[in-house]
């Protein structure tokens, strides 16, 4: 057997853990693509998979994702996974299809897990960019909701909001989450999700520039009422 360099051995490990392929085919693929890991993935996925009828064989699922996370040395709930998913334009949380995964890596300009790890800092910084935060936030709704559902489950939504507004401060986020659990108890619509960001961006925490006659979703109007009721803000 060829003696593998350390880097290549790492690459091999990663390849195997991510694709679930055997060491032998992994080696084949990597060699064929000259140890460029993304090209190797390309090769792997383009091979017909005669054995499995499993529609998920072309996907990285929850297990694969947690392996990926540990390889990257991040917690699965770390917001950077959201950013990564955004780059990949992933349809659903905790799942990557081949195209999504490869496409994402290409977009980031990386071809190895190591390089991906180096990009993490950059990805975190993207959250500080106003426009990118907006895009990531909007993306998050479709990504976090259940497949086939139109709305986002309340708990998931609250979790996402807590995560997102840790990056971009909004003083009223905790009141918002309390309010939802107290008074709403239903799923969140896409419109409400989108408009909440608008609300957080444009209306100041004292609500002095809140326009009651405006086109804010009903839930946000209710939230304002809640804030007055609880004397968080004076009318």
């Amino acid at each position: 057997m060829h003696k593998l360099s350390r880097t290549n051995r790492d690459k091999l490990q990663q390849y195997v853990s991510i694709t679930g392929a055997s060491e032998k085919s992994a080696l084949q693929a990597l060699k064929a693509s000259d140890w460029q890991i993304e090209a190797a993935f390309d090769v792997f996925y383009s091979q017909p998979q005669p054995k499995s009828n499993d529609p998920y064989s072309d996907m990285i699922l929850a297990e694969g994702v947690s392996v990926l996370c540990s390889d990257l040395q991040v917690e699965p709930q770390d917001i950077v996974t959201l950013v990564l998913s955004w780059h990949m334009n992933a349809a659903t949380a905790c799942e990557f299809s081949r195209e999504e995964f490869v496409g994402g890596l290409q977009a980031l300009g990386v071809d190895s897990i190591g390089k991906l790890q180096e990009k993490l800092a950059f990805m975190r910084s993207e959250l500080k960019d106003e426009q990118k935060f907006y895009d990531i936030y909007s993306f998050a709704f479709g990504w976090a909701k259940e497949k086939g559902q139109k709305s986002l489950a309340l708990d998931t939504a609250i979790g996402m909001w807590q995560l997102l507004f840790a990056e971009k401060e909004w003083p009223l986020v905790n009141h918002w989450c309390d309010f939802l659990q107290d008074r709403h108890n239903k799923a969140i619509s896409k419109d409400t999700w989108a408009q909440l960001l608008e609300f957080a961006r444009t209306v100041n925490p004292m609500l002095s520039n809140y326009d009651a006659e405006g086109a804010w979703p009903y839930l946000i109007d209710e939230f304002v009422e809640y804030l007055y009721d609880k004397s968080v803000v004076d009318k």
Partner: protein
Amino acid sequence: MSFSQNREPITIEDGFKLIDAAVTKLTRIIEGKPEPPFLPEEYIGNYTIVYNMCIQKPPHDSSGPLYEKYGAILQAYDKLTILPSIMEKHDEYMLREVSRWWEINKIMVRWLSHFFYYLDRYYIARNGIPSLTVVGMTCFRDHVYEKVHFNVKQVVIALIHKEREGQQIDRALLKNVLDLFVQNGMGNMERYEKDFEDFFLTETNSYYSRKASSWIQEDSCPEYMIKAEESLKKEKERVSHYLHSDTEPKLVANVQTNLLVLVAKQLLEKENSGCSALLRDDKTDDLSRMYRLYHAIPEGLEPVAVAFRLHVTAEGNSLIKQAEDAATSGIVEEQVLVRKIIDLHDKYMAYVTDCFQNHTLFHKSLKEAFEIFCNKKVAGSSSAEMLATFCDNLFKKAANDKSNDDSTIESTIDNVVKLLDYISDKDLFAEFYRKKLARRLLFGKFSDDHERSILTKLKGQFGGQFTSKMEGMVTDMQLGKDQQTGFEEYLKNANTGKPKGIDFTVTVLTTGFWPSYKTSDLNLPLEMVNCIESFKAHYEIKTNHRRLMWIYSLGNCNLTARFDAKPIELIVSTYQAAVLCAFNHTERLTYQELIDQLNLSHEDLVRVLHSLSCAKYKFLKKEPASKTISKTDSFEFNSKFTDKMRRIKVPLPPVDDRKKVVEDVDKDRRYAIDASLVRIMKSRKVLPHQQLVSECVEQLSRMFKPDIKMIKKRIEDLITRDYLERDTENPNTFKYVA
């Protein structure tokens, strides 16, 4: 006349001498001093002097100096004769002097102009200088008028004040004097306005301001208004007697402002005699006067209309409160209340048409007032429901009591339609009305004419969509009669399935027109089952593709109950009949057995059993004999029952579900809002939030007042369903998604 051209030219000196002599004579004549009048030769002679002096060859052509002389004569006369005479007099005497000298001056100018006429023809025309008349008038103006007008004005105003206080004054004199002011304007009204009118108006202003203050304290509203009317009349007369007509509008406005506009609030709100009191006490004359006075003022009617509206609102609110207080145990006497509201409407509408001349402002005030209190709830009942109940009782009574005069019913119907206009939840009224109409129709308590009449009127006022279902219901009843005849024919001719001696009537209702009713799987007594089957057979022959749903809860039955003492006919509902018939086969039945046998719901069975064993007429004996039904009770036919009546009607109290009606209407409203929003967005494509909401409210206002929050929710729902989307640039604007 011929003149010798070779005469000696007249020197200026000589000429002027002759002229002076003529002037002296003239002044004596016009001042009324004894002096023989000018002979025609003298007259012509004077003219000729001027003429000759003008046509003389230079250097003797004296047009210029003559022109100057003319002016000088008049100036001297003004300064030396006229002015001093005026100045030595005072007050009215001065006015007389002024008037006199003014006339004299006019004559003077006229005569002199005749003498110097030749100047007018050539010298003046050629040189574009003021004419003789103008010179004359200007002279007077500069040397007399300017000096005296101030004092004259003071005197005039003092006299006017005297007249206002009731004294007689010389009107003709004033007319002349004021005419003088006008004439001295020489073509425009400036002198009159600046030297007299402005002061006059200021004086008038303070005069009427003082009067207003004192009258408003002392007088009642009607008394004050009479005085105000008088004052206006007198001032207008004043204009016709001696003031210039231009002054009239300013004067009238002045008086109106002081007497009516500035004190409007105090006047109208006077306790015991103000607008409110007049309305209450039917003081039509005073109200008409009020209208007349304020109508003449631009925007003057507004405070009156406001007072009117406040009064009517207060009256309405007190009726509501009375009803609220009188409502015992949550039951409102809506008959009384609605009648009172109708009477209130008639009373105040009469004011609008008579005293207020049908003015739109008052129609509007009346409408606004009624809209306020007609939408209040009384003891939990909405006005929509109360009005529907009122109609229900009206028609039920009318159907029973044929002696009722049709025209009173008709006029009451008209009133109902008018009142409905003020109620914003018209769709709620329609729903309540429909439910009650159904009961009226099905239990036979209706008169076709009356029902049709109100529906026609409602349709006329609110559109066909409002009444279509109800009209369908009434038509069903008519068709039902024909259908029944057809059914009876069928029974006669058919061989099978003839119900054994049971008279059976079926009314077929078109679903959709009628309120929705629950069906039940009641197990009918066998005899009734046969009837049902035979009708089914008949109906299937007549029609295709129609499914019959039997609503036993609405039916009723005539049973003959053979009690020991005597048989009595019982008129009961189908449910009650089913329960009673169960005892045809068994003496005694437990609650459980009844449930099993009949397949009624617990709720229904309890109600039925209660009405048969615990109420006024106890056809069934209950064990134990408590006041309520429990599931362990057992029942027995009460053969010992008797009553002096041969026929007893046992009503089953209807389950009237106000909450359900409100829920149903809310649901319909949601659909209506959705439809309206989609309709608007489809045609406008892009629309900001505010406008969308206000257009939606307007579209729906004919039927109900939509809640803004509900509209917002529906908009969001439509976004979720991809009918609408927010504009990416401006989230306050919506776009239609094709």
